């Protein structure tokens, strides 16, 4: 397995979307480089107001700096477009706030590199992992995992996970306008499945975010819940998901 990993790592693009993460980005880059020395680290700076881009560049990452803040999903998609353009064989996405552990990355990469899945989603809830998030986050995840499991036809415990590995076919699909600009979650998993791509869920360990502002604060959870239900509903109404 290890031979296979090093062999494929050269074709690996690690996409880290970052918005005002100057505190965490250096540590994340270091741990990713230690865990996946042959991967190309691409930090997508989503119009940060702090020194995220400078910090990432000084730590040797390739930085894609968006001139304006376009949202988490659109930032990820920038990385996908870059990965596709540079013809990377595999892509890994992980958050810049330090909650995704780089040493766990191989767990999501293996099913994709072995060709078992086109997209592997790291789940903090499946398996015997202990993760304590905020109440609303746990509740939201529970509702959407039930909804997603029901609509996908297999069990998904963590559809909001931003710790994912995928092959080029999936990256190509994610570069289409189908990919949501704000929070890509269960809706995009459903669209991916409907496009004929295979999805696997893998248990991984995660840490609570080290700092920075949570995406799920203030009134956002309410909008988020509305958006999830509505976009899942609309995803089913669309016939052209594959395009």
């Amino acid at each position, binding site marked *: 397995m290890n031979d296979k990993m090093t062999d494929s790592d050269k074709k690996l693009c690690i996409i880290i979307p970052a918005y005002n993460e100057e505190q965490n980005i250096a540590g994340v880059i270091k741990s990713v480089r230690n865990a996946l020395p042959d991967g190309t680290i691409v930090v997508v700076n989503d119009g940060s107001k702090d020194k995220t881009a400078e910090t990432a560049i000084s730590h040797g990452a*390739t930085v*894609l700096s*968006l001139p*304006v803040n376009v949202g988490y999903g*659109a930032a990820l998609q920038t990385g996908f477009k*870059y990965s596709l353009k540079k013809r990377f064989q595999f892509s890994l996405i992980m958050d810049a706030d330090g909650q995704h552990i780089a040493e766990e990355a191989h767990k999501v990469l293996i099913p994709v590199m072995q060709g078992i899945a086109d997209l592997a989603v790291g789940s903090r809830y499946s398996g015997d992992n202990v993760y304590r998030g905020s109440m609303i986050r746990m509740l939201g995840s529970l509702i959407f995992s039930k909804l997603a499991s029901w609509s996908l036809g297999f069990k998904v415990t963590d559809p909001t996970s931003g710790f994912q590995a995928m092959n080029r076919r999936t990256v190509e699909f994610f570069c289409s306008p189908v990919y949501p600009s704000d929070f890509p979650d269960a809706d995009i998993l459903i669209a991916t499945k409907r496009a004929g791509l295979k999805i696997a869920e893998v248990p991984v360990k995660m840490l609570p975010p080290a700092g920075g502002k949570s995406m799920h604060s203030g009134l956002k959870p309410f909008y988020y819940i509305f958006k999830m239900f509505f976009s899942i509903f609309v995803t089913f109404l669309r016939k052209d998901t594959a395009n």
Partner: protein
Amino acid sequence: MPLTQKIFALVVSVLILIVIVELVRRRRLREEYSFLWIITGITLIILSLWYRLLVFITHAIGAVLPTSTLFLFGLLFLVMISLHFSVKISKLTDQLKDVAQEVAILKASLDDRK
């Protein structure tokens, strides 16, 4: 409809139309956006001149007063125009996203060559 009311309605509608045409002439308003506004202006003129049409529509939709018919249609037009703008803004947001992504990737490849 009293004559003063009629004249007032006509003057207002014609003024609106003139402003729209003038904005298009000065290229401050694009033709594609002026369409709904021009229709609004023309409808206002027709309804203020042709009172019997207004009364007819009032009866047809079950309203009591011709003025409420005018307000209803005014509101409907505003709703349509706002919806039209929401659609345009969604499209612009998507285009902005694509341009921003393109700029980010191009900038990175320029820096690579330095």
